[in-house]
């Protein structure tokens, strides 16, 4: 089956990630910052999902019986751990190279993930629904945010959970998010982000209310340059943040 290029995905943005997709799984390769970020991301996701669905976060398969969708999954850095935590995972990315790399890796690790080249639009059009939908570091790259949110919303099963992460549009994120990450530390390629597309939590919350979701949590993600580590911070959403929302209707 040939997937049609989704209209909300900006072709120029995708091209930028395609160039980087070969070394997805090398912890000291070009995706090193994502590997550093991953334990914190997964801790956040696991805690939110465990809380929402009443699961024991200390068990090793707290997502048993849940379906999850990872949008913009790249090489599968989040999709694989989700599957290992017990979810049956579908993961999509418009970048066919990244999906190919992800499939290869999951096979080598004997982890089952349903990887698909495509976009949230394709799945929404097909009427698919999931208990948990993730859109991590995606919304700041999409061309039409409202349209994207509407598609996301329709993918969440009633009673399900939507988790987003993105960059806030503040002076701090202009300096730290782009200046430091892209230029100083060379974590991500310069040109990866466009600050004007960053989203304030209030804007995201408003967008979610429009599609009839209730914001359940807002947590900041902070980088500590001294420890060279990320951590979650409830009171600092100035640069990166997570937002979880539940479907009301």
């Amino acid at each position, binding site marked *: 089956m040939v997937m049609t290029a989704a209209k909300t995905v900006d072709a120029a943005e995708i091209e930028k990630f395609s160039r980087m997709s070969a070394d997805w*799984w090398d*912890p000291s390769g070009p995706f090193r910052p994502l590997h550093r970020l991953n334990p914190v991301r997964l801790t956040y996701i696991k805690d939110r999902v465990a809380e929402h669905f009443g699961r024991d976060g200390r068990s*090793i398969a707290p997502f048993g019986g849940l379906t999850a969708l990872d949008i913009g999954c790249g090489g599968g850095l989040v999709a694989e*751990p989700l599957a290992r*935590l017990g979810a049956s995972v579908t993961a999509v990315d418009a970048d066919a190279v990244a999906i190919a790399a992800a499939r290869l890796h999951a096979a*080598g*690790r*004997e982890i089952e993930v349903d990887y698909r080249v495509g976009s949230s639009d394709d799945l929404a059009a097909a009427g698919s629904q999931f208990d948990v939908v993730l859109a991590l570091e995606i919304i700041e790259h999409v061309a039409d945010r409202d349209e994207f949110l509407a598609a996301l919303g329709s993918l969440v099963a009633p009673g399900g959970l939507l988790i987003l992460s993105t960059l806030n549009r503040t002076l701090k994120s202009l300096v730290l998010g782009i200046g430091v990450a892209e230029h100083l530390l060379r974590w991500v390629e310069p040109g990866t982000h466009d600050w004007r597309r960053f989203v304030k939590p209030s804007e995201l919350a408003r967008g979610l209310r429009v599609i009839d979701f209730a914001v359940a949590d807002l947590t900041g993600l902070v980088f500590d340059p001294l420890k060279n580590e990320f951590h979650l911070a409830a009171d600092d959403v100035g640069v990166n943040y997570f937002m979880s929302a539940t479907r009301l209707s």
Partner: protein
Amino acid sequence: MSLRRFDVAIVGGGIAGTTFAAILGGAGLTVALIERQPPAALKGSAYDGRTTAITFGSRKVLEAAGLWADLAPHACPIDDIRVADDASPLFLHFDSREVGDDPLGSIVENRLIRKSLYKRISATATVTQIAPATVASLDTSGSLARLTLADGREIAADIVVGADGRDSFVRAAAGIETIGWAYMQHAIVTIMGHELPHDNVAVENFLPAGPFAMLPMTDASDGTHRSSIVWTDHMDAVPLYMKLDLPAFEAELQSRAGEWLGRVWEIGPRFTYPLQLRHAKRYIAPRVALIADAAHVIHPIAGQGLNLGMRDIALLSELLVDRRRTGLDLGDPMLLKRYEDARRMDNIAFSATTDILDRLFSNDIPPIKLARRMGLGAVNRVPFLRRFFMRRAMGAAGALSRLGRGERL
């Protein structure tokens, strides 16, 4: 043949490997525990006649892992350690009351530790015991570690933990070298009965040929008072002592034990162990970590070998369990690095201390004799220093892991 996928594959089902399996399995991780001896052989008293001085810190690890309840009735507390020298008895004295109400440690028979460990892991569905089985090859080039057993079975895991003792196969297969040397001393190990109670006192008597330790055990079911003997002597003399008949051996025991326990006799069985100091240059390799004797072997002079291993276990299990709860790959190079960095310093410090202790005492040279008498005398006079040494020996210092602090994983 069939390939099975586990979170963690542990090679070596000694006390360290089995404890590690029990802790990981208890947290829900799927574990393959591969041991080349049949389990029944490891449980018998003919296999391991040693006792282990379980420090306070190790006890916390065993408690948190749910293993201690089984062992507690058989554990004899050490309330006091008396260090004596050939010529001057009882001149260094460690009393547990100086650092709190808890005993300095507890003496437990290794065979009982093994028995309760096997009982525990047999009841843990997440642990698959594969024994007897020998590992033929290790391949860590891919995104999973793969072990091939001698019978052709294959096992895949995120990480392979070498708990296969001093001559570790995993260590060699991962290309990790060791530094160290064999001591000219070997140890004779046996159980001794005695007329008078030991009052929970451990005695280490430094004789010119090597330290002679009497470690208090719980009374036998018939009320016999017992102590575990670790008698270190020159390697050429040990075979001769091993061959002695009972009356001759008991006469040797009595002359070393002194009079404070009254008449002594041998309950046995008698074992002998060669002694060495060995340290792995690295504790880690891609998808590989070494724990306990596979990483470090020390002189038993301070009864700390397994206790250091327990500290390895406490830290590595914490790192692995926390990571598994995020669903991430357990073979993470940063995780392995954190383990190695934290454990190497501690273990090297201990290896050096025990080596120096042995060298200081196992000789008859007057200046050294004088120096050690002065040294020990000084420690004894300064309560602060003595408490420092006791805390170290109790394993309470450097409790950097949750299990070591008595918290749950």
